[in-house]
């Protein structure tokens, strides 16, 4: 009888844990994502080194965590050529405490040899951004992968 009672109690406790984990985790993720508009100039900035012809892509932002649990944000940027060969790649991970913000910056150098004619906007290839947002000690989260660009002659 004791075993059954213990099992019944464990099941009830676990059910409550599931509801709490789901509500708290989802709320934190939702608050974090809905605050993207207030992250400042969260986006890429392109600059060209005129002496070498190399391009520098800088991704900056100031993500704010409005939830009541810490969050982890991982960013990975990849630039590849038309044959999917990686030209440049960089990644970073930051921890953002509850109710605070943390600046993030990611820089990539695109060598001039991969930019025909020196004009990056006319170059063929792919740009991929992976953003991984996690909460509850990295146990729950969401990831977004965006890949744009194209190949061809």
């Amino acid at each position, binding site marked *: *009888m*004791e*075993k*059954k009672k213990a*099992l*019944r109690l*464990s*099941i009830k406790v*676990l*059910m409550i*844990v*599931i509801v709490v*984990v*789901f509500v708290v*985790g989802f709320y934190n993720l939702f608050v974090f994502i809905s605050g993207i508009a207030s992250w400042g100039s969260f986006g890429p900035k392109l600059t060209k080194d005129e002496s070498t012809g190399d391009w520098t892509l800088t991704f900056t932002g100031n993500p704010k965590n409005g939830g009541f649990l810490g969050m982890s944000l991982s960013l990975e940027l990849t630039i590849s050529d038309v044959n999917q060969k990686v030209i440049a790649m960089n990644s970073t991970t930051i921890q953002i405490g509850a109710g605070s913000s943390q600046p993030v910056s990611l820089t990539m150098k695109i060598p001039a040899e991969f930019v025909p004619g020196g004009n990056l906007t006319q170059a063929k290839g792919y740009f991929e951004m992976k953003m991984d947002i*996690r909460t*509850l000690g990295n*146990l*729950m*989260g*969401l*990831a*977004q*992968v*965006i*890949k*744009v*660009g*194209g190949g061809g002659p």
Partner: protein
Amino acid sequence: MKIRIKTMVVAALALIFLTALPLALETYVPSEFFRAFTVMGGVDLMALLNKVVIIGVAMAVLVILRGSTEKASRAGLGVSIAYKVFWFLVVLFILGLGNIENLGLAVLGGTSGGATNTVIFDFRLIAFLVAAIVALMIAHALIDYRESKTSRPLT
């Protein structure tokens, strides 16, 4: 074999809402809607509805089996365990937006005009906790079965 009215009602409701309704949707909703939803949402709505139909049939069968077998019998224990595992699979189905094999990962998005946008929700922790509950429920059912066989409570 005696089947209670309550069992029949639950089975009928499962068939109506999870089998007949999705089939009616597939018949009466224009296929363009399903195609548009698949492209925009990244979820194959038609395949999802077909899976819901299968879940409805499986649920109805399990409800009838559960209602018609003796709880203290070996068959009753088997059906009880199958019913719990079935509910675990339904949770995985919901968490994975129709993909049980993702084990709690919901993948949305797709490719449009050369651009790919994929969003992945990670609910594996929830799936793990539900698996733990199902395991405990199965243990509970096994103890119930053993108690009914020995006719004395286990301490």
